[in-house]
């Protein structure tokens, strides 16, 4: 069974004042089919974990390990990690002017699978997935993320998750900025992917509301660059009622 295993991970970010440590020893094991929610106050390092695992050049791993099926994830380039089965649904998807969604999806799918998708079935698959996510068919000819609303960008991220069929998907605050309808559509997409592909999900969120649609098997509370508490879905319910005050003292709330 595929496993994403993170051991004692320390990560710094480059700043003008030099390297600033963000993650201070993260331990986490995700098996395929499992959904882990990572919750925590702003600035606790949740998104850094997502970006560092995907290989964003801004972040430097200073110690610790991350393996995917026993393979050293940290030794891989960004594209190699994706081809090894890791997917990151980004918090702020980037615009790529002049590159159509259709071209982008086909290019990425070809890279990930190592061969071009079968013409006959691929078109139908894309069309069906777009319909499921209530993405208008005209988006196929639009430039990637250009002029998309916040909700459209997030649906486009989940569209990719459904089409690329990764072994592990990290959803970096996919719920932020979504209204209730969009949140439901996006959550349905994630749940479809879980059902269809047995993907392991690392769901990073500040709020509990997405957990009403995507049921976590495990909840981890992230504070000051590491996991402060772990539990089952009931931990999310406690956070819903009490916020993060218990972990960070005064100042931080659930907002």
């Amino acid at each position: 069974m595929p496993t994403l295993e993170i051991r004692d991970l320390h990560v710094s970010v480059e700043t003008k004042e030099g390297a600033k440590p963000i993650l201070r020893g993260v331990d986490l094991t995700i098996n395929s089919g499992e959904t882990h929610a990572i919750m925590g106050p702003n600035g606790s390092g949740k998104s850094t974990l997502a970006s560092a695992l995907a290989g964003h050049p801004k972040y430097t791993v200073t110690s610790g390990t991350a393996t995917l099926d026993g393979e050293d994830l940290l030794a891989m380039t960004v594209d190699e990690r994706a081809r090894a089965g890791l997917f990151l649904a980004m918090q702020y998807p980037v615009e790529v002017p002049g590159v159509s969604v259709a071209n982008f999806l086909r290019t990425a799918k070809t890279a990930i699978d190592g061969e071009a998708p079968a013409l006959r079935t691929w078109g139908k698959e894309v069309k069906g997935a777009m319909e499921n996510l209530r993405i208008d068919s005209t988006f196929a000819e639009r430039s990637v993320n250009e002029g998309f609303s916040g909700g459209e960008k997030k649906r486009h991220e989940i569209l990719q998750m459904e089409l690329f069929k990764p072994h592990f998907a990290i959803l970096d605050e996919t719920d932020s900025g979504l209204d209730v309808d969009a949140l439901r559509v996006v959550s349905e997409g994630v749940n479809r992917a879980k059902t269809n592909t047995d993907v392991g999900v690392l769901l990073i969120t500040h709020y509990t509301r997405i957990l009403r649609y995507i049921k976590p098997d495990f909840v981890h509370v992230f504070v000051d660059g590491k996991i402060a508490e772990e539990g089952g879905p009931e931990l999310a319910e406690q956070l819903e009622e009490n916020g993060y005050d218990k972990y960070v003292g005064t100042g931080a709330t659930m907002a």
Partner: protein
Amino acid sequence: MTAQTMTTDHSRAVADGAHSHGVVPAGSRAERKTSFDLADIPVPTGREEEWRFSPVARLQPLFGEDLGAGGVLTTVVEAPEAKVEIVGKGDPRLGTTGKPGDRTAVTAWNAAAEATIITIPAEAVASEVTSVRVEGATKDATAQHLLVHAEHHAEAVVVIDHRGDATLNQTVEIVVDEGAHLTLVSVQDWADGAVHASSHRASIGRDAKLKHVVVTFGGDVVRITPDATFTGEGGEVEMVGLYFADADQHQEHRLFVDHAVPRCKSRVTYKGALQGAGAHVVWVGDVLIQAEAEGTDTYELNRNLVLTDGARADSVPNLEIETGEIEGAGHASATGRFDDEQLFYLMARGIPEVDARRLVVRGFFAELIEQIGVASVEDRLLASIEAELEKSMSVITGVAPVAE
């Protein structure tokens, strides 16, 4: 009618930032000296407004009065409807599009003893592209004069294609008579050492339309100065440019659109990519809306994509408005570096770096390539962009490109 003069200058475009609107130091473009007489326009020092970005030492061979004629071989394959003549310089059809405006333009005018005239007769619709192939034969400094004349209500596409190695000083006159539609494409696909200055002077008649396309890839120094003047109401000009500069290449495009009559429309879109130490691109877009030119509609845009360190882009849009009664007038200029976040996004979808860079650069040019509307040119352009990208990929991957 309210009269006002508004002038803007962007002497250095800021990367993706807001640009400041200052005062043009050299005064109005309308007051720039133009003349057919060599004595009126001396050899530049490089400090003049129109030469301040240019490597004048490398252009020196083109400033002299004694340019020859044998440095290029010119082959015209015309559409069946078009007519080609070689005429002496005294032909009255020459010199109607305005006077030379800088030193290379005036030396080109005076040195060329003959001219090639391509005429698309009145109301003729050319069934094929007319191709003018200009091929470098020797490095002798050479003058050349071409005139493309679309008579009233004619329609045609003319492609001037420059290849090989040459030292060429060129005049391209473009006359678009009433109601005619002309697309003129000039491709600079020179070999590495070529030096090329070209003054394009276009006059656009009543209800006429000119699509003017410039594509610059090769050469050591290429400096193109397209001027467009409206001579009748309802005229329209669309000026499109693409360029890709490598290490130590200088590519300069200086445009001037003269709205001298009412109710004409101009659209200028130039985009360029640059890579390698010493790559230098210059874009200057002057638009003058004269006091009589009520109802003018103009917009110009320049974008540069800097792919590597050590390359430099200068972008200067200038808009002078002498009447308040206009439809619209605007400009935009931005020079941006290759976006690492775009690269990360694409690579995080499994796309290898080389392919991701290719996607981004092709995307940058995509819309403009579609705008050209001449399939053979579009295909070649895509191939040239691929070839240029191979060079920068070799820097990234450490693998030398295959020699041509």
